[in-house]
């Protein structure tokens, strides 16, 4: 993907703006537009690191998968986790990360595509995660039901189902805001 600003160089900085729109810039444009600080904190040994505006961080907290990170080419070593500021190169070198979100942000670099989502029935997982899976499944089922209710012109049932979906989606958003 090419940089959306200069349309010339390879994009290596990806981020979300306040309205949730996704952007891709090359490192030079990102730096000139203030998305990357040319100066790094002294504690980081002088290596340049991305600067993350507060608005972007808030957007990321709403949706951790809209991650700001540099993913390709020569700039990969400069990628950092927007939550704990752990640099990707340090994570790879030391085999350690700083927070659970590092795994989301750096997932494609730390874990190649060989990961399989197939899980055995008795596999252990946290109860909160099970609840999230159940919630997502319930929403999908309700959406199917709402479609058939609309098709059969049963608008009263459709409205009830819509309210249920809103409640379920709301509970999911509330849980994410705790991050």
């Amino acid at each position, binding site marked *: 993907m090419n940089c959306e600003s200069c349309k010339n160089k390879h994009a290596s900085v990806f981020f979300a703006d306040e309205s949730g729109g996704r952007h891709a810039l090359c490192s030079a444009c990102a730096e000139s537009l203030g998305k990357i600080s040319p100066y790094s904190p002294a504690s980081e040994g002088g290596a340049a690191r991305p600067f993350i505006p507060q608005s972007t961080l808030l957007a990321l907290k709403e949706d951790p998968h809209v991650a700001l990170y540099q993913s390709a080419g020569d700039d990969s070593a400069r990628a950092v986790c927007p939550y*704990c500021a*752990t640099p990707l190169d340090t*994570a790879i070198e030391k*085999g*350690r*990360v*700083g*927070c*659970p979100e590092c*795994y*989301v942000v750096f*997932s494609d670099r*730390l*874990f190649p595509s060989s*990961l*399989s*989502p*197939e*899980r*055995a*029935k*008795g*596999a*252990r*997982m*946290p*109860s*909160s*995660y099970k609840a999230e899976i159940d919630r997502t499944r319930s929403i999908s089922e309700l959406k199917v039901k709402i479609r058939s209710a609309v098709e059969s012109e049963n608008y009263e049932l459709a409205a009830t189902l819509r309210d249920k979906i809103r409640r379920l989606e709301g509970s999911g958003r509330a849980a994410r805001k*705790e*991050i």
Partner: protein
Amino acid sequence: MSWYNTEGPLWDFVLYSKVRYIRNVAKQRFYSDADRNRAAENTARLDSILQKNGFRAEKVAAGVTAQALSLLEKGFVERDFVYSDKPRALYQNEPCNLLISLGGDNFISISSIVSGASIGEARNMAAGAEELIDREMPFAYLEGVGYLSPRISDCGSGAELSSALYLPSLRLSGSEDVSSLAPHDMSLRPMMCGGENLGDIYILSYVPHHLSDEESAVRYFGGAVSKIIEKEKARLGMIAQNNDKNIFESARRALGTLLYSSALSEGELLRLLSDIRLSLCTSESRSEDLPRVATLNYLRAEGLSASVILASGKTCSSQYDCDRARAALVRGYIEHKNEVKNVK
């Protein structure tokens, strides 16, 4: 922990079975990277959860103490717990054989250690405690990766199934190919004391995949333990046929040394206990005068260097004092309490 004074299945060969889960808290920095306030806050929150549910807090002083090293020697805590500079805590639930440590690289370590080959029981206990904490403080987990840890290589099920196995035939037969005994995805390694393999104890461990069914993993592990024990019994049978008298004599000599020596090194103690245990395994009919397996297990755990220093109130200023204290401990149990009872 009471694993050494209650009898379990295949107790002659399996000292204990252990299941350990390592977990970290979701939606916040890993404990090793968290600031001290956040670390103390999390520890206090878990303290109230655990104390409400029948866990007893153990006093753990800061720094690398004899107590922490003793817990490490016994396999109750991880190495990074001992060397951690963050707040740390230890909780026991004796009736359920549960031990939970907070601190170290991974914030929460839940262990269940039970006597003999009872890996299923250990797993049930550990899983119960894990669910209890997860309800109150959700764990860091990611689809496709599993339970998350600050160490990338530790991500996955976060579970480890292990057993301490007594396998004297390996030394007696001169066999060094230990790894061939365990299935290819398990590890069998000697339990090291002071950099040496002493006492013929080996640890078989297995880390199940986070996408696999845990009950199947437990059954698989139990099957591997049974197979290793079967092979061990067959080898010991052959050794006993050819060498029965010598085995019994060496046990008698070992008992005499334990009773009359004024100072005992850690290595010497472990070797002598192994000789007695071998006699119990191979010639049960002549074992009336020998200490019971419970006593041997107890002495093995309590005779380790850090434990001895701790038991004698840290008064052991030299190695010789430590060895004397160890000899006194052993004599006390063999002469006066041939059976270990109500060990705390």
